[in-house]
């Protein structure tokens, strides 16, 4: 009965069924009772009305029974909803961008797609980003919907169960072409998905690797160029694996630049100073950078080989 297209469908559909069954019983029951009353006590048959004014017992009864029923409905709704907020750790992360009036899905590394292609049976988390006004991402078949609000880090997640195409709609009114802000989810086999992603052309901005972000933030690039030009310090161009003459304790020696050398240059810049540069111009970055960050910088600089760059 409940073979929904995603892991979340069952909880939602069960709540629907529970509420609708109770609704049906009450609406039909009370309507039939009203009609029965109208017929039985019609003025034609019943000239004299009974003059009672109420019953405390009945009032208590029809306060308690609805109260219990609505709390049950609430409970079903809550149970169906709770998993929607518990994203599994291994969920694939995709950024869904809403803008007037289109959807775009960012798979990282500058790979953007106007359709949401997903591997079957893999949890996926959509991070919702608005570039202008409010939108809302709705995939009816998966029973997921969450507003895309500028300035808010909203998200939703689900695991698609079946291969196929599913509508994506915008359900928060967003102006002229609101009703055209639609797209498709294509759920495919995992290997097909990998192939599709590999062939997806990188159109968007490729984000900076973390090492480069640190170099920029820490201000390293003010003194060390990455294009070979000489600034206050030596350039990073082709630096990794290069042979250099350095001055250590006043003695010249030739070394090959490797991870250890880069690390010591960050922590104790003056210990092995490249020949031709002055002492005391660079401070130790021991306090500004922790070990992880230094590793990230080294990892990034390790791509600056003499052959590459």
């Amino acid at each position, binding site marked *: 009965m409940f073979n929904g297209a995603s892991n979340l469908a069952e909880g*939602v559909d069960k*709540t*629907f069924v529970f*509420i*609708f069954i*109770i*609704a049906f019983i009450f*609406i039909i029951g*009370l*309507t039939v*009772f*009203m009609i029965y*009353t*109208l017929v039985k006590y019609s*003025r034609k048959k*019943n*000239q004299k*009305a*009974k*003059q*009672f*004014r*109420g*019953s*405390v017992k*009945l*009032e208590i009864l*029809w*306060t308690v029974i*609805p*109260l219990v029923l*609505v*709390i049950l409905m*609430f409970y*079903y*709704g*809550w149970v*169906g909803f709770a998993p*929607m*907020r518990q994203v599994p750790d291994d969920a694939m992360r995709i950024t869904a961008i809403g803008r007037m009036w289109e959807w775009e899905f960012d798979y990282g590394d500058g790979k953007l797609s106007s359709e949401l292609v997903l591997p079957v049976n893999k949890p996926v988390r959509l991070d919702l980003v608005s570039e*202008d*006004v409010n939108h809302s991402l*709705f995939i*009816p*078949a998966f029973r*997921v*919907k*969450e507003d895309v609000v*500028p*300035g*808010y*880090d*909203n998200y939703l997640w689900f695991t698609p169960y079946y291969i196929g195409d599913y509508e994506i*709609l915008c*359900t928060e009114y*967003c102006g*002229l*072409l*609101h*009703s055209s802000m639609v797209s498709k989810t294509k759920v495919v086999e995992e290997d097909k998905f990998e192939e599709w992603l590999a062939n997806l052309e990188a159109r968007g901005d490729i984000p900076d690797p973390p090492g480069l972000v640190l170099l920029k933030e820490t201000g390293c690039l003010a003194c060390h160029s990455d294009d070979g030009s000489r600034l206050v310090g030596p350039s990073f161009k082709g630096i990794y694996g290069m042979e250099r003459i350095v001055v250590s304790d006043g003695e010249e020696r030739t070394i090959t630049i490797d991870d250890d050398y880069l690390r010591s240059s960050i922590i104790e810049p003056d210990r092995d100073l490249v020949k031709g540069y002055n002492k005391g111009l660079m401070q130790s970055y021991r306090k500004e950078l922790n070990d992880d960050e230094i590793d990230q910088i080294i990892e990034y600089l390790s791509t600056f080989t003499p052959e590459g760059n």
Partner: protein
Amino acid sequence: MVNTSQENYLEYRGRFKGLMGWLTSTDHKRIGLMYMYAIMFFFIIAALLGLLMRIEKIAPGQTIMDAQTYNGVFTIHGIIMIFIIVIPGLAAVFGNFFLPIMIGAKDVAFPKLNLLSWYIYIAGAIMGILSQFIGGGAPDTGWTFYVPYSAESGTNVMFALLAAFVLGFSSILTGLNFIVTIHRLRAPGMTWFKMPLFPWSLYATAWIQVLATPIIGITLLMVIAERTLNIGFFDPALGGDPLLFQHLFWIYSHPAVYVMILPAMGVVTEIFPTFSQKPVFGYGAIAISSLAIALVGYFVWGHHMFTTGISYWSRWFFSFLTFIVAVPSAIKVFNWISTMYGGSIDLKPPLLYAISFIFLFMIGGFTGLTLGALATNVQTHDTTFVVAHFHYIIFGGMGFAFFAGIHYWFPKIYGRMYSNRLAYIAWGILFVGFNLLYFPLFVIGIQGMPRRYFDYLPQFQTGHVISSIGAFILVAGLVVMFYNLIYYRRKGEIASANPWKGVTLEWQIPSPPPLENFEEIPVIKDKPYTFDNKEEKASTGN
């Protein structure tokens, strides 16, 4: 008790005659009718706009209007229906006309303020209409004015916001007037629990009007400030918070739903005992449940925002309280039905409308629970399911209660009788048309048809076509009903003072009522809704 020594309010001539006599009158009965005529005028406009939308939706793609026009049409349909029609609605029309009479007063506490409220209302309504024609084009934000779109749209949003702001003042002043009237002007002997239940519902409503409306006023002003002065309250581009707007908007607009529905419940509560010739069942339970709805109703606004990214526990609490607030409504339904049980029931048009009210209100209520449950809300939020639910509550509930009320009090207001036969025919057409129009929207809503969609996917067409057919039928029913009421208000048979054998005070004075309602202020001794003075003492549980 019936006497004709005083001129009735329709014929009375004061300083001015004709139209001016009405426009300068501080008589609560005339003001009530002036609200009714204005509301009817705007209702016809907004209903026709609704029909245009349904024609547009009869097929996917463009049918009779382009997307921008459609967005403007649903916006003004909502603004007129909500702010100009259903919020003042029953309270302004029947409240004004019957509240003073039912509590044995000659007028409301502040008659001049009452007339001023009407003028403020008209000014706001005219501004709302003008917003369509002047400035940068018809507003296209929806009646909810969600920011950032409403802060950025190039259309004439400002004027529409200002109109809603002005209309709010009318609502606050009417509420204030009613609160003071109920506190100060009840006839001697009419204790709180001897007061009829329609005044009780107006009392609960008035408090919501006074306490909640200022919040929307300030919120609308904030949007105006944002648009003109670039102050960033809500627009993230200016450093604001778009969800703050939604919170403020719904802190008012959810209680506003009860401003619409509570007086409707009050009206049908008057109708059931009269046509059953039997006291209201559970008087105390009905009165208290009105107050409970008004009170708890303040704390459920978040159920409009379950998918906006509010926190897990916010969703939990708002959902829970939403379910709790459903209980007093259920209690009322049981009491209404029990009021009829054992009675001597005369199924006249007012009762027929009141019973349809219960039926449609139950459907609206249960689908409201579907929206209030967290799991099902995810699927139904912002789909046509919401549109259908809302129309079942507001049109099926408040609208049908209004129709019940006008058929009930028509002989009192005009001193004439409409055609019963036409009233039954109109009811039949309306009831069928209504359900055809709105029920399919539940179905396609669950399947994923979003609301406020100019265009739609082909799989939703069947539902849309049925709905559009229903719209035509509904409009036909409205035409018959309006014809019946308008024609017979002057041409109908003369009605007696108490054609339905009602026991509330309005039925103890002539039809139409004399200018000052009562020759002599009545003294209240009996319990309310006493049809038989020999009523068995043993069974007076409430």
